[in-house]
């Protein structure tokens, strides 16, 4: 996928509006928090997409990386580290965790990789829950001069970094190897691709980015009732849904999926309360069955239809 000058300028306008608008218009703190959550979801879904969409390995233990990022960032920040350093270390420790989880599970094929990762992530969640049974919170001094802007721009910056990283990866030879592994692992091996190494590196990058997302999340929260809540499988399932509904194996799909997910949750939580997630289940099933390319596929189809109509009119 190459960008044309037109789409580059559209992207520049979108990015500029994300940077400038909050400074001019006062959105209020709840909207800003939703936007930060949206950035977290974009980072998470895009990094899940790197493994699930491009490399074809369905990672159900993804929450472990996010949770690791949150926990390490929170603990380091509390012990006096500067927050930006803490976030980077959080990302690195998630990558380290990926080494531990990846070495045994990446040898497994297909569904067994999925089952193996969810088993390890659950084991980790239970251990963390036993180590930190009580709530974790930051001292009051951290909250006294709270300012939402650094959090917003950090989230935005890392979301852009994630998208650029994935874009550059796909353009590279390594990206081609990832797609080969997804399409046919045996054939990829025969043509001389080191499939284990490819999957391993993809997992490391994906985990590092998920750890950074955890850092953004930890930066915005001062109090965790149960720290094991950030290791809950929901942090795997929701990015997975965003990717599949948006369009897996595409650059823009997870972004659309995340926006869709966050906006719909905000709308339906008012109507259905706790049960609002039912909407995503109802959406996910037909998408998997009838349009595996997700919302991006619908947009392409729409574009084709509109293009066909205008051409007919010209004639």
């Amino acid at each position, binding site marked *: 996928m190459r960008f044309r000058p037109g789409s580059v300028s559209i992207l520049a306008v979108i990015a500029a509006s994300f940077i400038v608008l909050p400074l001019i218009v006062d959105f209020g703190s709840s909207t800003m928090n939703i936007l930060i959550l949206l950035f977290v979801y974009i980072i998470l879904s895009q990094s899940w997409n790197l493994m699930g969409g491009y490399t074809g390995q369905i990672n159900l233990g993804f929450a472990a990386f996010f949770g690791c990022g949150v926990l390490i960032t929170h603990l380091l920040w509390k012990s006096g580290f500067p927050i930006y350093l803490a976030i980077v270390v959080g990302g690195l420790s998630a990558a380290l965790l990926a080494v531990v989880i990846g070495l045994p599970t990446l040898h497994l094929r*297909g*569904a067994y990789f999925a*089952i*193996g990762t969810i088993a390890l992530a*659950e084991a980790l969640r239970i251990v963390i829950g*036993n180590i930190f049974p009580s709530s974790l919170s930051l001292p009051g001094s951290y909250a006294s001069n709270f300012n939402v802007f650094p959090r917003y721009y950090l989230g935005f910056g890392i979301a852009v970094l994630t998208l650029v990283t994935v874009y550059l990866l796909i353009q590279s030879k390594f990206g081609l190897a990832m797609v080969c592994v997804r399409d046919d692992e045996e054939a990829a091996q025969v043509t001389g691709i080191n499939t284990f190494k490819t999957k391993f590196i993809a997992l490391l990058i994906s985990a590092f980015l998920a750890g950074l997302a955890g850092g953004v999340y930890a930066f915005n929260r001062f109090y965790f009732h149960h720290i094991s809540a950030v290791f809950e499988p929901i942090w795997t399932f929701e990015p997975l849904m965003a990717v599949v509904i948006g369009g897996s194996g595409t650059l823009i799909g997870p972004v659309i999926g995340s926006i869709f997910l966050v906006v719909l949750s905000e709308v339906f939580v008012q109507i259905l309360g706790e049960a609002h997630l039912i909407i995503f289940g109802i959406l*996910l099933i037909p998408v998997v069955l009838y349009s595996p390319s997700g919302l991006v596929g619908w947009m392409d189809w729409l574009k084709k239809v509109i293009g066909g109509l205008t051409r007919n009119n010209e004639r």
Partner: protein
Amino acid sequence: MEMFTQTIAYGILVGAMYGLLTLGLGLLMGVMKFLNVAHGTFIVLGGYVSYWLFTRYGLNPYLSIPLVIAVMFLVGLVVYKVTLSPLLKLPSVGNRLNSSMLITFGIIYVVDNLMTIFWKPDVRSIVAPFTGRSMELFGTKFSITGLCGFAVAIVVAVALYFVLGRTQFGKHVRAATQDAEAASLCGINVHRTYLISSGIAIALAGVAGVIIVSSYSISPNGGLRWLLVAFVVMILAGEGNINAIVPAGLILGLLEAVGVFIIGAPYRQVVALVIFIVILIFRPQGLFRKRRLAT
């Protein structure tokens, strides 16, 4: 010593239940190559049906099993018809596995939240007169609910063995498992076989739910815990090896009980998951190697 025999007894009772709650997952995976991630959710649903019959009509949970089977069988038919049968068109087994996983994810979200709407997110369990009572056999205490669960597990496993091994339908299932195309050329209605197998698989999950709601507790999003147990047992038994599932469940129950005896109760689930990873790495074909027919 008494402590130890008690541990073993507990392990056997729990292990039989582990076997029972895996049968449905193993059947879907073995016969159709569908990985049903929503298996735990269907277990919980079966538990709620039984709970509802108990609180509404005072029906003994073990007597409600036939009704639960009927309801969950219908649920299984609907699930197969609406969501799983379109997947049979997919060309490769790997595709089918991954897509069935994603679809059953969607089912988790739908069914979990429906249960939250109907039964509220509270934790529920059936408290019957015999709950919490135990009886003594050979100097060891066995809880009544545990013994009933054990009996149900054995009866169900033996029944399933006879259905799959000794009936015409079972023959069709085995044929469709080995080679769906060849089976359909021989005049077997593969779709109907799959449909009924799905119904049976979900009904088996429902039976497990009845046992769980009467000896443990259920909540709308508590399915994941049982799903993980079922995964572990399925891997221990070996994929597609349905007859080995209950023995594998017993092995897991015993190992877990001994593990908890040594390192403590908070790490109960961790023991199972570690066993699981070790098996996945060193013996991915399962503990019981399946006898292969000469070809």
